[in-house]
């Protein structure tokens, strides 16, 4: 990880398909994601926090790859340069009374 100057030279150019929903859980569109990059949102972790893309029920398991591709294109870098947002436990949604139960069955 090196120093990143938070400047983006290119301007935001609206596109016909900006209304396409990318994050289905939180209903975030392609246009919102692209615009956020121009607001200065440069990492996937920041994108989660800024728009909630990838913060819903599936925790980004559906949309993270598409969000990354869109951000990379907007930033003009290869997608590999963008880190995924941190995966957080639990792996799948767990009901509170289940997670609360630490008893071990015989």
């Amino acid at each position, binding site marked *: *990880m*090196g*120093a*990143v*100057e*938070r400047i983006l030279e290119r301007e935001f150019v609206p596109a016909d398909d900006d209304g396409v929903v990318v994050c289905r859980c*939180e209903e975030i569109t392609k246009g919102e994601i692209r615009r956020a990059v121009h*607001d*200065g*949102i*440069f*990492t996937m*972790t*920041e994108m989660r*926090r*800024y728009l*909630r893309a990838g*913060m*819903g*029920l599936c*925790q980004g398991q559906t949309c993270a790859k598409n969000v990354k591709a869109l951000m990379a294109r907007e930033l003009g870098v290869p997608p590999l340069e963008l*880190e995924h947002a*941190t995966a*957080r*436990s*639990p792996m799948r*949604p*767990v*009901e*509170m*009374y289940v*997670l*609360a*139960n*630490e008893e071990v069955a015989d």
Partner: protein
Amino acid sequence: MSNTSDVIIVGGGVIGNAAAYYLSKKGVSVTVLEGSADIGHGGSSRNGGGVRQSGRDPRELPLAMYGIQNLWPGLSGELGIDTEYTPKGNLRLGKTQAHLDILRKLTDRAIACGLDVRMIGYEEIKSINPYLSDEVIGASWCPTDGHANPLTATLGFYVNARRLGARFISGEKAVKLQKVKGRLRKVVAESGVYEAETVIVAAGLESRPLLNTVGIDVPMTGNLMECLVTEAQPYLFDQMLGAAEADFYGHQSKHGSFVFGGSSGFEGCTLDKSGLLENYEKTAPATCRGIMRYFPDLKRAKIIRTWAGFIDVCADGVPVLGNAEEVPGLVIACAFSGHGFGISPAVGYNLAELITTGKTPVDISALRYDRFKAKI
């Protein structure tokens, strides 16, 4: 690009971003150095979102009250970003007589400082929040408290400061402060050297080693705090909740998720195997049991995420804020002790005033860096 600006801010968290925003608004040129890859990496994105006055130490209460009276109400409109500020009150809950004694003490202290807060009984609690368990017998109630979204508030300050011309560099860890002719002038970072008239150190726990390079030490330590988030639920209530023993807190966010913090009793001894601020395996289950005792109806709500973060706890539990006269040009803003988010707009605003006018609207002298004395 020239590495010289009027002000350098070390730390791109909510405090640094708020200061960058209010300074940029006054036409001051600002460079913000963030050590991690993400803006708002530390406690700024890892807190319960409380915007509270009740339960505060009298030394920091004036900042909390200033922010709630003057800054929070118009912040979303000013930033053009929904900070989800919800001033619908804070209930601090008690289940035993010992709890009520703690609450009474906190309440009396806050009333003495001019805050509108009072003790309420079972009936009134139920009328404010009918979903609470019958085990709750009393609470303190501060109707002007509330909560907000730390993620959008932190990034909202960042996006707007950047728009006003503030320069942000992430992945640039400051390693050393340097004086020139007796005045602080340079910040040496991993990839470059930056110069300014004034340097704000707002780097959370990392502030301590950095301040040590100019001979200043702020006694603080890191405490891991852990929270969990439920899937979006039907709307239940607006209040910020806390408990007398400070072992449970949380709120329902605008999009419907509940965000609850709790503890397991292993605080300070938890294990973080990866060093990536991992949750400790015993904390989330203990927090769930705690929540179900306050809100039995939530037992089938699904947990979708847990997270952890370090609180920069000061030896005496309140922040260090203001100039350090022995190092002219240095401004310290750290050791927020888990109370930083709620006062962040007020801190950023006051720092901007301090730097541009030499005065602050709120008296912050009780938060000086040189207040620490050994107990005997």
